[in-house]
């Protein structure tokens, strides 16, 4: 398997997806120092593909900006499409680990995909950095080979819940989200933080993934002063349109996926005023972020959202750990320790570090959708209104107290009478 004339090696060789339409033969890598093998599990087909493609673009942008080198080692980048199914994720993880012998895995995208390979990556001691939710992988069932530089499903929603109660002064909310773990964990986080600060969640509505019609749910929204939605992919677009069409005017708050910067070009005026909390914001005025966002825009003609930024930051973290461990991943435990010890000041999302369970401690940005001038010619813009610094996955609760509760689920925290 020394010479593979695949599209993948081609991608590695050029590390520029912009050229994806053209085909040429790569020059086979002649044995130098062994390249650093970076695997990506992403979703390029099916309903989750929007985010999955941004993930790959994030990595490719990083590689291009860094001359395809990580800590001085040449990078061989291998991208695999899981199809968004757990069995596919397992097969592709096997492909990356057993066939391609990657040093590090980035991805997968969805919580259920991550759960399907959690045992497997632990067994094979493969360091894995992902933005998938599944809170418990860094909480009650920690996986020592897993690191999450993005956020748990509930992390941004804790912030949003607090902001909604304290800064917006709202008292009574309805939550609406997808009927799966990511949704439960998002809204559980919102409810817990919102109620801690004096709010009350009147009801939580669960919608099947891919619902075309939100009308029956919208009809139930009365007697509240704020609405929290947690949709992902293209869901927020359809939801906000129908929400506005039916004439509802309650302010809408959401997490990282519901107000993703990558969706800005597709939102219309109905999204004006929507508040979202995200571990990354395109609006962040730092050199690191501008460099990243402009490179994304130049390479792929899109603005980066949470997914692209998440994977770009993953690469930052891997490089930092690689530098700290002297360019080798041979001793997996040492490398994992190096990963967890990474402290970066200047990523596109600002400074980050990790807790002992492998989850990020970093900034979260509360943004409002406005019509604002921006360098990408977008009609709408996520304007940062407040930055919360060094937010941990436990929010303001002590770790012990937080972990003593069950993981957020459909029925936890239970609804109180408002």
């Amino acid at each position, binding site marked *: 398997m020394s010479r593979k004339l695949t599209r993948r090696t081609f991608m590695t060789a050029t590390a520029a997806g912009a050229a994806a339409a053209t085909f040429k033969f790569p020059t086979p890598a002649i044995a130098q120092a062994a390249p650093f093998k970076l695997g990506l599990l992403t979703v390029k087909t099916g309903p989750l593909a929007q985010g999955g493609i941004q993930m790959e673009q994030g990595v490719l942008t990083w590689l291009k900006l860094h001359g395809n080198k990580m800590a001085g080692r040449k990078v061989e980048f291998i991208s695999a499409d899981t199809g968004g199914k757990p*069995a596919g994720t397992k097969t592709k993880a096997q492909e990356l680990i*057993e*066939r391609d012998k990657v040093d590090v895995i980035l991805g997968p995208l969805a919580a*259920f995909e991550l759960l399907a390979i959690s045992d497997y990556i632990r067994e094979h001691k493969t360091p894995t950095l992902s933005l998938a939710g599944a809170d418990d992988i860094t909480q009650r069932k920690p996986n020592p080979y897993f690191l999450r530089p993005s956020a748990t499903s509930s992390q941004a929603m804790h912030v949003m819940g607090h902001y909604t109660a304290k800064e917006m002064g709202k008292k009574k909310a309805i939550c609406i989200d997808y009927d799966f773990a990511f949704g439960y964990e998002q809204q559980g986080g919102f409810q817990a933080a919102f109620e801690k600060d004096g709010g009350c969640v009147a009801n939580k509505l669960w919608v099947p993934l891919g619902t075309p019609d939100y009308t029956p749910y919208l009809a139930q929204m009365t007697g509240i002063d704020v609405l929290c939605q947690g949709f992902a992919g293209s869901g927020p677009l359809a939801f906000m349109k129908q929400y506005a069409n039916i004439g509802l005017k309650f302010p809408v708050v959401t997490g990282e996926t519901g107000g993703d910067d990558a969706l800005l070009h597709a939102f219309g005026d109905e999204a004006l005023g929507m508040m979202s909390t995200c571990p990354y914001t395109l609006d962040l005025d730092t050199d690191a972020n501008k460099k990243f966002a402009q490179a994304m825009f130049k390479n792929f003609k899109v603005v980066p959202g949470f997914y692209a930024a998440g994977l770009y930051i993953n690469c930052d973290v891997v490089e930092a750990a690689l530098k700290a461990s002297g360019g080798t991943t041979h001793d997996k435990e040492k490398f994992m320790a190096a990963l967890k010890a990474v402290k970066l000041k200047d990523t596109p999302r600002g400074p980050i570090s990790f807790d002992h369970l492998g989850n990020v401690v970093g900034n979260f940005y509360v943004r409002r959708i406005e019509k604002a001038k921006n360098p990408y010619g977008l009609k709408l813009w996520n304007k940062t209104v407040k930055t919360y610094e060094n937010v941990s996955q436990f929010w303001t609760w002590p770790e012990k107290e937080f972990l003593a509760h069950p993981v957020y689920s459909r029925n936890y925290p239970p609804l109180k009478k408002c």
Partner: protein
Amino acid sequence: MKTRIIALLLALVALVTVPYWMPGAYYINVTSQILFYAIFALGLNILAGYGGLVSLGHAGLLGISAYAAAYLLHAGFGHPVAIIIALIAGLISMAVYAVLSLRTTGIGFIMITLALGEIIWGLAYRWISITNGDNGINVHSRPMPFGFSLASPTAFYYATLVVFLVCIVIVTIFVRSPLGAALMGTRDQPRRMNALGYHVWAIRFWACMLSGLLTAIAGVLFVYYNQFISPQAVDLTASAEALLMVISGGAGTLLGPIVGAALVVIVKSVVSGFIERWNMLLGAIFVVIVIFMPEGLVPGTARLWRLAWRQFGTSRDDDAAAPSKAGAEQ
């Protein structure tokens, strides 16, 4: 006849030596997948191919066995108990399937099995206390029959191979048995069979049960291979994929479903690494098969082979009357 035996022996040797000539653990794993999907497809083929009863809900049955095994293991039962109960659960649900869907044939049968499959998908998705919903159930260990650990790809491959060979033998015996012949009779001439005194419903029912047994076996292998089960494994796409295996390989033949399973698994797991639009490729392959070999890859290849013999070869007559070609499997 002699050539067929030689071809079968060659195929067997090739299968047994897979771990020695495959270029790595990953490909051994892919071969294991092919084998248990082939068992699944063989099970579906009994209904769809030999019985003329097309089921679009078979992934649901596979799911029931897989979920049963995963749930019991999670609850702390041992492997033998989990496997046996999983097989029984698969058979019981097949019996329920059969009783409900055998009231009709043709499109009615397809729609009822489709509906039942969707019900199982819904249960897997929403009965969270048992199935853990979308998060699925993890299976932390593989069984250790006679003290051999199946944790390594090679060990698991051999276990799958043994089960696969047993299944093939069972299916071969069934197809050549009077019951198998009667089943094909009910497919082609149900009324005449009825008039001849055959109990058409009972014949179909027992065919369903054999199909259910194979599906349950595949389900157990599936869950042990992936060590994980979630609702995506039982959805409509999974059922359709199984049907695609049967039809593309050749419905109503012994080798067809195996070739079909190999085709689908290879495109899905190996080729998808090279071609981003692998779904489209699979579709295109299927269209090509339908155009040039509407009867499926195995019978189609055999037909073209015979044609070529007649055209160019010596006048060897109907040596290849049996529509099978074992070599195609590799």
